[in-house]
């Protein structure tokens, strides 16, 4: 046999072996992809298709109180947002920003303080922790009703009863301070969520690190500022972002407590008002929704990045 023939035989053997490996790799890939396929399809059907429809509606002039057919108008809805006629949209956007920032900030502060109190051994710890979590488990509508009727009510609310007891006049909270009232309820509901996140951070600390700091002469506050807080930072960031994503979508509390009076109407509430709530401007409302979605996606992206950093740090 000549050398050339042998070489060719060796080459073809090598090739078939390489093909075999490729085939195995492909099969391996499908084995990994196949199980997530149903979830992926489901997600596309329930989120992406409605989103595409909304995107399409936002490019049309569509009102169901008129007989005219839906008209494609390009980006006119978007450009109109800066006009004088849309000042309520900008107001609602500003309310959304204020409400979200305040609610997140205060629930984070209250949640952190509760977490610090809970992060120690005492009798009945589990019971107290469960009690503190319950506000988070109450349905938003129910929370709104509870606060509106039992706490803030002008005639028989507990807060006014206490104020009267202190010799003060009753206050009509929901009309005098609509946004403040909503924020108080949001903080009451969301502090437990922040507490759980911060508590996870506190309990993840190595107790001997805190002891080392004590031996090294640090005060209790010094230990919190110099040791605990830096370790807590990613947890606080995570709480902020998750909280912001949810709180930007608040609707129920506003509907129940202030019910459309000016001063506390955020974007979701305004969107509902302009479409199903009687406004009937579906095209325009779709435009608002798209804006909210884009803003939320930006926030969520930052959130996911923080989350993955957190998980990397742990490993």
């Amino acid at each position, binding site marked *: 046999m000549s050398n050339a023939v042998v070489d060719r035989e060796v080459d073809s053997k090598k090739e078939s072996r390489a093909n075999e490996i490729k085939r195995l790799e492909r099969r391996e890939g499908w084995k990994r992809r196949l199980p997530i396929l149903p979830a992926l399809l489901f997600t596309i059907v329930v989120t992406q298709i409605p989103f595409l429809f909304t995107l399409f509606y936002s490019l049309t002039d569509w009102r169901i109180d008129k007989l005219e057919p839906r008209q494609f108008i390009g980006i006119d809805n978007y450009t109109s947002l800066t006009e004088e006629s849309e000042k309520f949209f900008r107001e609602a956007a500003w309310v959304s920003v204020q409400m979200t920032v305040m609610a997140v900030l205060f629930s984070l502060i209250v949640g952190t303080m509760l977490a610090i109190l809970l992060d120690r051994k005492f009798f009945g710890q589990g019971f107290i922790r469960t009690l503190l979590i319950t506000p988070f488990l109450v349905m938003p509508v129910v929370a709104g009703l509870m606060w509106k009727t039992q706490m803030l009510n002008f005639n028989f609310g507990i807060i006014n009863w206490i104020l009267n007891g202190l010799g003060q006049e009753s206050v009509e909270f929901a009309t005098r301070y609509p946004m403040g009232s909503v924020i108080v309820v949001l903080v009451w509901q969301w502090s437990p969520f922040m507490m759980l996140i911060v508590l996870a951070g506190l309990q993840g600390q190595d107790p*001997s690190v805190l002891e080392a700091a004590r031996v090294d002469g640090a005060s209790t506050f010094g230990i919190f500022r110099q*040791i605990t807080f830096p370790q807590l930072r990613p947890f606080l960031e995570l709480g902020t972002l998750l909280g912001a994503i949810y709180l930007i979508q608040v609707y129920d509390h506003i509907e129940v407590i202030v019910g459309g009076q000016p001063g506390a109407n955020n974007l979701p509430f305004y969107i509902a008002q302009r479409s199903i709530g009687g406004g009937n401007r579906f095209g325009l409302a779709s435009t608002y929704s798209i804006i909210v979605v884009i803003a939320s996606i930006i926030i969520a992206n930052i959130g996911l990045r923080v989350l993955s950093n957190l998980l990397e740090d742990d490993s």
Partner: protein
Amino acid sequence: MAEVRYEKASRIYGFGGVGAVRAVNELDLNIADGELLVLVGPSGSGKSTALRMLAGLETVNEGSIFIDDVDVTLKPPQDRDIAMVFQNYALYPSMTVGENMGFALKQAKVPKAERRAQVEEAARILDLEPYLDRKPKNLSGGQRQRVAMGRAIVRSPQVFLMDEPLSNLDAKLRVQTRTELADLQARLGTTMVYVTHDQVEAMTMGHRVAVLDHGELQQVDTPRRLYSSPANLFVAGFIGSPAMNLIETDRTGDELHFGSTVVPLSDDVQADLKASASTRFVVGVRPEHLIQTPDGAPCGATVVEELGSDAFVHASMPHNGTEATVVVRVDGETAITRGDNLTIAIGGPVHIFDAESGVRLGKPVT
């Protein structure tokens, strides 16, 4: 520089009565200025608790602790001027190596420039200069251990407290580091209390060694004397590797038997034996004090451990009606193998303990 004194110091967990655990019970211990004292004992014997009581991290429920004749029993850790190295090092994860080492000085409001100088000096001693700007998670185990050491020495404290600082290192590094640590302590001349469960570490490092068991101090002495004159059965079994042969035996009048031989007893042991009402005793002989002699007790080799310079023969010996296992040290050149028969006898110091109370008979060997 300071002396340390425990006076009947106890740490009691749980509420009085049933269920209360005396993790450390009425500990009396004097540690001299500049001394390296090792606390050794099996896991759960209260070593860490005793150290943490001195650090101020555990409440002293009874008794008191003094540092240089100052009663520190009720003082918080930050007022005791001590530095502690933890088993897992407990480095501050969000700070660099330099910040870790300078942390205590910062708390003491030492000016920045001075702080930097002291940190750099400590880093030089410990070969940590290239790593001053790294975070702890980017260091190897040995480097982390040195940072923990650095954090302690930067402060020039009155007393160093070390809780098993080498137990997370691999065997080779552990042996090397323990020499370096003992050398560092000698150079600085600072009193050190060192906790370990490893009796070899205790014997090689300690000026004196305190043996703890079940929260009770068993004996405190120099390594040499702990080995040659254990105060009780526990210390006899704990110190030394391979362990001392401890053979239980019934008394025959005023004689004790080891296999088929009669144990040679000194006059003071003989006197104590005569005075004792007990019937069961433990004969303790170190493997190197058993010799092969034609008129010794017969036994059969079961396992032979070759160590090169010498070998340890595990042998089964008919004793007191049953078989007892004894370990004999023999020359590495001797060709004893499994199944061989030998005759052995006690050819060195023998330790006799009361089997019931564990107390040693006779005067301590000096």
